[in-house]
């Protein structure tokens, strides 16, 4: 079933991208394009800066953005670096022009300035150059978005369900389910270096699945199943959070993603297999848990479909605040 009523491009590209998500894109070089945009005295500086940064290659800073731990995130971050450099150059050029005009042309006399209104050549230049810049940026965007949205054949898949105000991670082929609500963050465990297909959906309102370290987010929507692939390449524990405002305890709707080695993952699966010694929580317990959060508000009853399956409480020692 294709749940997307509007032709999800990622859905139609199912299992494409033979090169796999790890195929490294060419480093974007948007710095060169804007440099052409203004007079020549900018050209030298801009090319030097852009070229120097390009030479640095992977050593480029992430400009404030979280360092990615997935191959998809790495693709996205390269695009971000390109956009950031291009944006910074354009910003500095226009900033310089405004500042120059403001400082240089302060009124000094009563002389009437020349009443110029048009300069056709100049106008054509500053129309076409941005068009070129934009088309170049769009080209890189197009390549990267196909890489980020690629859906290679997965080794394993996880169905992630958002609900008010928590998450449920169901390992489809492993019969493991993790749930957690606010102040009891659930933890999704993933094996390192393996493409994992995520099926993302929501039980009630729209939520946002966002892990900053993955440099990726996607809405969890009722009635729509979003598919995407993540391939983490660094082990560690990363925080995740709902980004789409979803009601009272949106702020507390957090989770963690733990990327572990293959062996550790297998061990984790065997201990949390639903037939294993899982500490499952009942509906009543979960409701009490939910009600214990500050605010004296009665949240919606957690979805019965979540709590009726075998569940594993993965919340030991977690404090959101």
């Amino acid at each position, binding site marked *: 079933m294709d749940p997307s009523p509007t032709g999800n491009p990622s859905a139609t590209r199912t299992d494409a991208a033979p090169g796999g998500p790890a195929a490294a894109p060419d480093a974007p070089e948007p710095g060169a394009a804007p440099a052409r945009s203004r007079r020549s005295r900018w050209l030298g500086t801009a090319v030097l800066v852009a070229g120097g940064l390009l030479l640095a290659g992977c050593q480029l800073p992430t400009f404030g953005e979280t360092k990615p731990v997935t191959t998809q995130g790495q693709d996205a971050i390269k695009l971000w670096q390109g956009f950031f450099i291009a944006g910074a150059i354009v910003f500095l050029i226009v900033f310089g022009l405004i500042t120059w005009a403001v400082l240089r042309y302060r009124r000094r006399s009563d002389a009437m300035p020349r009443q110029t209104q048009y300069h056709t050549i100049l106008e054509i230049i500053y129309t076409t150059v941005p068009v070129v810049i934009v088309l170049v940026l769009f080209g890189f965007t197009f390549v990267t978005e196909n890489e980020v949205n690629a859906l290679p054949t997965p080794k394993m898949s996880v169905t992630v369900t958002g609900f008010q105000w928590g998450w449920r991670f169901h390992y489809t082929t492993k019969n493991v389910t993790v749930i957690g609500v606010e102040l009891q963050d659930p933890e999704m465990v993933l094996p390192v270096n393996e493409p994992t297909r995520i099926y993302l959906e929501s039980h009630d309102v729209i939520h946002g699945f*966002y892990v900053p370290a993955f440099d990726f987010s996607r809405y969890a929507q009722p009635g729509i199943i979003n598919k995407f692939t993540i391939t983490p390449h660094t082990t560690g524990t990363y925080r995740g959070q709902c980004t789409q405002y979803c009601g009272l305890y949106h702020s507390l709707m957090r989770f963690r993603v733990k990327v572990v080695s293959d062996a550790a993952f297998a061990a984790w699966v065997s201990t949390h297999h639903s037939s294993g010694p899982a500490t499952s929580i009942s509906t009543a317990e979960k409701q009490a848990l939910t009600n214990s959060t500050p605010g004296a508000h009665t949240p919606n009853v957690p979805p019965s479909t979540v709590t009726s399956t075998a569940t594993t409480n993965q919340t030991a020692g977690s404090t959101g605040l």
Partner: protein
Amino acid sequence: MTDVIAPPAGGGGGALIPGAGTDHLAHPHEEHGPSGLMKWITTTDHKVIGLSYMITAVALFYIAGLLALGIRVQLTTPAGTFISFQQYNQLFTMHGSIMLYLFAGPFAFGGLANYVVPLQIGAPDMAFPRLNALSYWLFLGGSTTMLLGFATSGGAADFGWVAYAPLSTSTYTPGTGEDLWIMALVLTGFSAIFTGVNLVATIFYLRAPGMTMFRMPIFTWNMLVTGILILIAFPVLTAALVMLFADRHFGTMIYAVTGCHTVTGAPDAHACGSAVLWQNLFWFFGHPEVYILALPYFGIVTEIFPVFSRKPVFGYKGMVFATMSIAALSTGVWAHHMFTTGTVLLPFFSLMSLLIAVPTGIKFFNWIGTMWRGQLVYKTPMLMSIGFLFAFLMGGVTGVMLASPPIDFFVHTTYFVVAHFHQVLFGSAVFGGFAGLYYWYPKMFGRMLNDTLGKWHFWLLFIGFWVTFMPQYILGLHGMPRRVASYPAHLGWQSLNIASTIGAFMIATSFLFLLANFWVSWRYPVPAGDNPWDAHTLEWFTTSPPPHHNYTHLPTIRSERPTWDYNHPEAPTIRHGGPSGPGHPNGHGPIGSGNGGPPGGGDGSAGARQGVPAS
């Protein structure tokens, strides 16, 4: 009484001495009919309606600003206890709703445009004065309805200003405040549609002789395009809201998905609404709305730069076509707010969004070109406009980044987006809007605003602006989601949030200077004269404030700046290929000898376009 407006007879076109008429300050000369409160209630004069709009909108701006301070105070500590989660959710919902629906739009197209557009094209009034009055009363009713939410037991609406379904359906937000929010937007939506119709009709039908479309001031052009955008966007919002209300109360399943969806099974497509439908409808309204909020302010600063540079606007025609391109593209980019839904055509919306940068860039270069080699005078309106340039530049550059889906994926709904749209919207609506207020205030009241207080206002606002929003970019890149009332303490976000809060308080302080300025100008009036800025466009030809039906005389219109041509016949606009006069070489001087009477002195026979009683 109905006034039949008759232009001058015969060789009319009397000369008016600019600068005269300052003595009208204390003697309002248009007293037809009732005064006091009844005057404000029964008026159909576009100037009075425009003032009502502006006063209401600015009052709502102050309220929404206070709500923003509440938000910022809550975020100074990770586990903020200033207000509860529920109050916090109401606060950001109402802050956004009031600022976007009730301040930024109505202030521009209801207030300034209402006041200025008929003056700029030499019209006696808007095309449909009673409809204009109705617009205002619907807007006032809508604003009251939205604020009433705070008085209900459940509090105001708390589903965000975008009211994403299914959160906005009755299952999740059953309160009265939410219903009031919907009705408020239905009322203000109709108000906006009526104003849009009025603006378009006025500009199409009531221009003065010689005021061809390509001689209209850029502000009027932008308001025409805004009017068309309103007619495109607001009906969609109103329809979407009616459907949302039906979902909430009449049991329809247009957006609602409750009860028809199981986590494991497939949803039953026939019984289910679509959560994405609301987003499609809302953003089809919402993105043009962003430009409905921006284009008028572009227009304002495009009026101000030439005046305070003593030059014509650079690239007039390019400016007009850039405005049209922005408007056209803005209607094809709605789904760039929905990149992370996974249900939209990414390349189409990405390319369309990126392309908007081109006409916006043209505008930037035109503004810079206008200032280039000018004689820049830094009065408050000019400072505000320069503040707008810097703010919008930063917001625009980050907007290009957001137009790229892979980047949007990781900054969407984080504080990066919050910072971006505040720089764009705050940059235009606040810097641009208050630039317009400082600029046209002398025309509206015949008295100046104090420039020293204005500069204090500007500098505090400008510094506060950057201190508030730059940390938010960093917070967003670090992964702080928007609309959260608390955040984990160990992530080091607190210092940046405190910086942002300090900036917010600087902004708030700056607006105390505006209040002081109003008080000073009310208490110690400084007469403005007809044309205190040596401005270019037609509205500065009439008295300050303008008489009933605006003009007793009009100059001959031979370019897009008739008042300048009249006052500075020695400095005509230089078009392609060197100096040549606009139209008639001798067309700048007074046309005919005129009647020479005091302008607007109530002498109905004195000259052009004076109101004549019908019976």
